[in-house]
């Protein structure tokens, strides 16, 4: 479980960011006191810091320089000012990445994930298992009782999303959005085609009725 500290003075954004991060499997630390922000950071170390530039008391740049005196924790600057000066400043002062408001959540999450991956050796098992069906992410194969079939890029992403939400009904719209976030621009029809193909492949390795269609709601494994 990675811990992310969100330093942001807008209460709504702070709260919603923590909801978003929690629902994507991160723990969130929220500092309360902007006057002693540095000591708060020292007291509760995190794996990554999201840092707003426009803050009360002192701006994000100063805080960043302060953090860099004692820690190399990855820092992503979040700002509504998208001047290149800001971008340069943030990189000069030891920020690792820079993202502007209003940010796109998928981009934000992708940046967080890649920064964590770069900083901390990947601790993910690149394998997902559910009801004896195993998904191998690195060679995009699906396996059941020793038989395996190869999946295309789209099919693999669809399966990853279904596995991550195993036991829950996944709305088609969510699935399409997830694919778009992974830069696979699949439309509704193509999604149906992909699901059909996955079912055929599952059948070939001896799995039937693994993916259920819930009429007007979505898919379920």
């Amino acid at each position, binding site marked *: 479980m990675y811990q992310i500290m969100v330093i942001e003075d807008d209460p709504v954004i702070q709260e919603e960011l923590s909801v978003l991060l929690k629902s994507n499997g991160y723990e969130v630390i929220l500092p309360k006191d902007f006057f002693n922000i540095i000591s708060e950071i020292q007291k509760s170390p995190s794996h990554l810091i999201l840092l707003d530039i426009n803050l009360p008391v002192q701006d994000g740049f100063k805080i960043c320089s302060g953090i860099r005196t004692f820690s190399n924790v990855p820092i992503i600057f979040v700002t509504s000012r998208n001047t*290149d000066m800001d971008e340069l400043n943030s990189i000069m002062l030891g920020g690792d990445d820079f993202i502007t408001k*209003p940010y*796109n959540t998928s*981009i934000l999450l992708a940046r967080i994930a890649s920064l964590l991956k770069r900083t901390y050796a990947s601790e993910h098992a690149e394998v997902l298992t559910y009801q004896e069906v195993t998904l191998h992410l690195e060679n995009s194969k699906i396996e059941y009782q020793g038989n395996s079939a190869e999946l295309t890029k789209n099919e693999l992403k669809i399966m990853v999303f279904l596995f991550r939400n195993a036991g829950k009904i996944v709305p088609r719209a969510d699935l399409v959005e997830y694919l778009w976030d992974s830069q696979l621009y699949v439309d509704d029809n193509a999604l149906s085609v992909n699901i059909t193909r996955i079912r055929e492949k599952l059948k070939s390795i001896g799995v039937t009725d693994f993916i259920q269609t819930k009429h007007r709601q979505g898919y379920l494994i």
Partner: protein
Amino acid sequence: MRYKEYLRDQLPAIVTHILSMLLCVVFLSAIDIQASIISILLVFWILIVAIYIHIRFFLRKRYFAELLLQLERLDKKYLISEVMEHPILTEDKIYHRLLKAANKSMMEQVSESKQERKEYKEYIEQWIHDVKTPISAMKLLCENNKSDITRKLMAELTKVSHYTDQALYYARSENVEKDYFIKEVSLSEIIHAAVAENKQLLLQNHISIEINDCDNTVYTDEKWIGFILNQLIANAVKYSGKEPKIGFEENSKQGQVVLIIRDNGVGISESDLPRIFEKGFTGENGRTGKSSTGIGLFLCKRLCEKLGIGIAVKSESGQGTQVELYFPKGDFVKVQE
């Protein structure tokens, strides 16, 4: 200054001389002076007056010609009163004083307006930055509570973002020089970022996306090019037709990278096509129920000029639109790492 006009100005003096001559003739005749002597006197008198008038004409003509030439050479013509030589004649001095005073008051007015404009621009920029915070908050709220309604809201919020960005870049576009950061960016990265930016808008409008081998890199400012792509995508969505599609394709010849953005929307009529980059031009599409501001493409063009990107639009009414971006060749040596 024409000779005729000058003579007309000199008329009072000439009339005065003629009257004096007549009086003299009358007076001299009265005291029995010979007519021949009177005529010699008159001839000399007329000669002297004529010479004086002529010389003065040439002097004045030369003086004004020099002044006009100076004005011609001046870049900022309103500075003429500052750079011209101080006149010698009293009348000229008065005119000079008038000119200076008028200029001074105008300069004050101009600088006041400039200051006001600058303050307003700063306020607009500040306002845009401020409004981005609630937009972000709303986006996050929608993202965390996904439903059909919030998806529609997200699409609308994307439009709001577009408009705020447009305003920001309009305010900034005059001095792009101060705010850019050329680096090597991969085409596919900026395209994917622009698509992600408009995800909800594209999904809500059921637009399919095709990206064909855009794996080259270009040297440009990521932010500005992102804005340009955003505008083009927004236009493609706005003027989409049946089974809408947006395609991105790279087409590079002799080291020049060309990005083609193609849609199959309503297109642009032939008569509108030459004018689409004009500020405030809305054209047929803008008038037929699709609200158009005529700012988007104008800004795209302006930013492209600043970034050295060539932009060309091909379109036929009802056949979709194709925008081509010609990126400048990166002719500097890459640093070997």
